């Protein structure tokens, strides 16, 4: 694994433009068509397509940055999404006749600069030398309009935020399951999702926006319960038949969409307010 990363770093940090293009193609890191479609349409939806087209490359850079500098410097994958708009605004975009290649090489050049800056600042003991990568000079190059670059910046930001969101929800799902001590089948019933759907969510697939409030509510409720009941007793508590709940179990109320009612009952209970 480490040697694989080193071999790839050798290409990404020191390889020629041709080697980088070949590597990117063989690893399927850029989907062709996204960049050229944007260059001809210059619309917000096309900007979204461009950002999506380089998503695997962006993530590969994040992995390689982690391999190269992770010991010294915290690397955050979504940062690389934010490099896409500067590349589109730069002489890279439109320099070679292939927008796909331009984007690939422009991002690679940005990656090299970024690693070089880190190395200069904290000496990350790079085993691979960094070679400069420059765009081909073309007299007829025309910059993309500011407005269109803004579309790309916005799309990239959305993408980064969405990935962060997916990671957050992955975490929330894990915490809900662990705090409440739920089996997979109980989770699916609580969240009204299939086994396959839940599996995808927990692996980081996007969750439809309309499902998010339910997950947030359940997460909040789980944290709140675990603040008032010792963590080791929470799984037994939610499976206990309780007089205040008409001898039903908290998990029954959750599964029948009565989480707000459950919260109202326990707001009073946890406070120990003596009302009789």
């Amino acid at each position, binding site marked *: 694994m480490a040697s694989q990363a080193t071999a790839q770093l050798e290409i990404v940090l020191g390889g020629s433009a041709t080697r980088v293009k070949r590597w990117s193609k063989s690893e399927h890191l850029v989907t062709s068509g996204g960049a050229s479609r944007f260059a001809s349409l210059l619309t917000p939806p096309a900007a979204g397509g461009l950002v999506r087209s380089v998503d695997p490359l962006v993530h590969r850079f994040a992995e390689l940055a982690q391999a190269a500098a992770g010991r010294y410097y915290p690397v955050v994958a979504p940062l690389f999404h934010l490099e896409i708009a500067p590349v589109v605004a730069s002489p890279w975009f439109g320099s070679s006749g292939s927008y796909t290649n331009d984007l690939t090489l422009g991002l690679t050049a940005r990656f090299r600069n970024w690693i070089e800056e880190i190395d200069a600042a904290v000496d990350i003991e790079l085993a691979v030398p960094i070679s400069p990568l420059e765009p081909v000079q073309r007299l007829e190059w025309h910059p993309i309009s500011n407005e269109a670059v803004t579309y790309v910046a916005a799309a990239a930001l959305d993408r980064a935020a969405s990935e962060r969101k997916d990671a957050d929800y992955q975490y929330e799902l894990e915490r809900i399951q662990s705090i409440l001590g739920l089996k997979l089948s109980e989770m699916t019933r609580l969240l009204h999702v299939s086994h396959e759907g839940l599996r995808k969510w927990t692996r980081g697939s996007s969750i439809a926006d309309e499902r998010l409030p339910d997950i947030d509510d359940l997460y909040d409720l789980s944290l709140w319960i675990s603040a008032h009941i*010792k963590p080791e007793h929470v799984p037994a508590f939610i499976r206990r038949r*309780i007089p205040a709940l008409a001898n039903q179990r908290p998990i029954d109320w959750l599964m029948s969409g009565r989480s707000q009612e459950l919260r109202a009952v326990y707001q009073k209970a*946890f406070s120990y*307010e003596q009302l009789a």
Partner: protein
Amino acid sequence: MNSWPRSDLATYTARPATFEFDQTSPGAVALTGILYRAIPHSSQEPLNTSQSLIAGGRWNRPGSFPVLYTGASVDVVRSFVEWHAVYFGLPLRTRPTDDLPDLIVVSFNATVANAVTDEGLVHYRLPTNYPTGFPPQEHTATRAVGQAVFEAGLAGVAARSATMANWTGPIASWADVAIFTGQAPEPALVDRFRYDEWYSGD
């Protein structure tokens, strides 16, 4: 900055509250002495009645008037806490220490409605076996009585604790006292005990 407790709990339990009845008015009882109440450990305002005003309780409808619910003995409060644990499925051993209730001691002197004796219950048209047979959270009948007592200007209601197993022996050992703080003499906070200082048993 208060430093609790100020005294030993036994100092207070040795001097239970007194209940004096007047044969000519069976609906009232003169109460003098010490009362107890469970409060959240985190509470900074132990005599605050805003929650009872919002949520209502045994003798007051939600939003009607504020009530400070107390017990006339530590045993009464303990029985409430035990009932609470069972009713809400929250055994005390499962609760974080900071969530376990403190006990406060208050001093209170006033004439309150008598729902402790058979004569008093009859006076308020409650069955003489009250609270037997009344579901724990069913307060329709008592809230109506509470409203009438409030409108009559009394300072509260003394009643048989709904969580005690029986009502024999001195009244102070099994009575609840609901203080209508809006029109009662102000109860005085005398002392406060952490859970591990007052409670024994689970």
